[in-house]
């Protein structure tokens, strides 16, 4: 199967602090692939490299065969017109209604008449179940509704690649289930490819085709959801089952407990 996204030997550093270390990854067309790991392990940075917002220190990021780091602004914008992105908290434009948020990209990039834009926006809002909330402002929407409007906006131009940055953060269980179902459903309905960056294990494993597990800037394991569930790798096991202690210790490294309590006879 042809790969839509190919990441080869990517290293990335902020100043001198290495964030990504030798990442290799492929995302086949039509699949939903998840990148999982703890907060701060470099997942979002990787997503920004795929979107062309950052350039790798070394290595290659290719989307649809094009090397993202070599594109100029016009080339980058041309690629981004074929991508959609759902941000962590939706990032809806607060001065526009739900309808205008979804219509924003269509109005910016096409010369379609307003009647046709109306039909397209209605279809996208209907797909996320919020046709009835078209006139509401972002401040009037609940967290889950805002995320759904943002999802409708992300797929407004039927992108070939949809990027999700922590789509489940801060959502109640029902909204979480709705969003995860929509991610799968929209991907299949649009014939798109999706990359879901998250640390929400159980919800994600239900909908994705493949998972990359990251820790400390490197891919530590990869496989299908069943592979991940059955993994005996200590870190993956601790992460998937939410165990309190394991390779990632409960206690942050520090001085001895007794010494901190200033107990008599404790070593300084």
């Amino acid at each position, binding site marked *: 199967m042809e790969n839509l996204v190919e990441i080869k030997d990517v290293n990335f550093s902020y100043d001198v602090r290495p964030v990504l270390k030798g990442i290799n990854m492929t995302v086949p067309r039509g699949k939903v692939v998840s990148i999982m790991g703890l907060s701060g392990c470099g997942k979002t940075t990787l997503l920004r490299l795929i979107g062309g917002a950052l350039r790798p220190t070394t290595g290659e990021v290719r989307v649809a065969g094009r090397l993202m780091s070599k594109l100029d*602004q016009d080339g980058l914008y041309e690629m981004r017109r074929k991508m959609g992105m759902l941000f962590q908290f939706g*990032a809806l*434009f607060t001065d526009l209604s739900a309808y205008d948020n979804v219509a*924003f990209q269509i109005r910016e990039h096409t010369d379609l008449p307003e009647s046709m834009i109306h039909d397209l926006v209605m279809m996208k809002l209907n797909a996320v179940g919020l046709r009835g909330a078209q006139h509401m402002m972002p401040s009037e929407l609940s967290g889950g509704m805002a995320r759904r409007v943002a999802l409708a906006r992300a797929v407004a131009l039927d992108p070939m690649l949809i990027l999700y940055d922590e789509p489940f953060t801060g959502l109640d269980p029902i909204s979480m289930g709705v969003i995860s179902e929509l991610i799968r459903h929209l991907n299949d309905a649009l014939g798109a490819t999706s990359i879901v960056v998250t640390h929400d294990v159980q919800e994600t494993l239900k909908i994705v085709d493949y998972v990359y597990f990251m820790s400390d800037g490197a891919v530590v394991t990869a496989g299908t959801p069943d592979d991940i569930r059955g993994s005996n790798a200590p870190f993956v096991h601790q992460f998937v089952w939410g165990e309190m202690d394991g390779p990632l210790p409960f206690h942050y490294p520090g001085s001895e407990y007794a010494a901190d309590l200033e107990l008599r006879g404790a070593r300084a």
Partner: protein
Amino acid sequence: MPERLASGLRGIGHQVVNGVWRLGYASRFFLLTLLRSPTSFRRFHLTVREIYFTGVLSLIIIIVSGLFVGMVLGLQGYETLQKYGSSEAVGTLVALSLTRELGPVVAALLFASRAGSAMTAEIGLMKATEQISAMEMMAVDPIARVIGPRFWAGVISMPLLAAMFSAVGVFGGYLITVVVIGVDAGAFWSQMQSAVDVRHDIMNGVIKSVVFGVAVTAIALFEGYDAPPTAEGVSGATTRTVVTSSLAILGLDFVLTAFMFTGI
């Protein structure tokens, strides 16, 4: 001691390098805004919308302040001129003070506090809530779509607000000196008419207000765009906008006055 001196020097050097870097970044931002301005005129409704937020919504503070400044000028002018038996010249004093100096300067200071701070906070919050990043990911250039229309709205609004300030100020001076104190209305208006020169006084005032409009709006937009995406960052940027704009207005006013009215 030498170590402390070296550390102090390093600190100063660091500040200077940071300052120069930021100045360069601000200049690049300003140039990009100008280069990507065609969108602001091609889709003029975006600029008109911003003129409403920056200009129309600033009218109340401009009109009320203009009225009070004009009334105070009338009172003070009458008090001083009366001693020399030329109280009819109060109209000239009020009009020249307003058109040459107070109109552009005070209107710009008010504009910086009201509209400039609002622009910085808006752009800063758009950045903090990832709206700017979202726009970039949608292949929409935020400089062309967000910054350009706000910049030109500020540049267009500022001279109109200054003109409004001066006009209302003259009316305030008229109210106090003619209606309340009883200075002759004919003398008030005719002396003003003969003393105020359209090119020398009014046009120079308009030029000043355009320059202030460019400075205040550019500073406000840059501070917002460059604000760290945190509550503290946006708050600091808003404060910097008001302080930097106010100093820039007063500094530029001195330079412009020196060139326009004293022939330096």
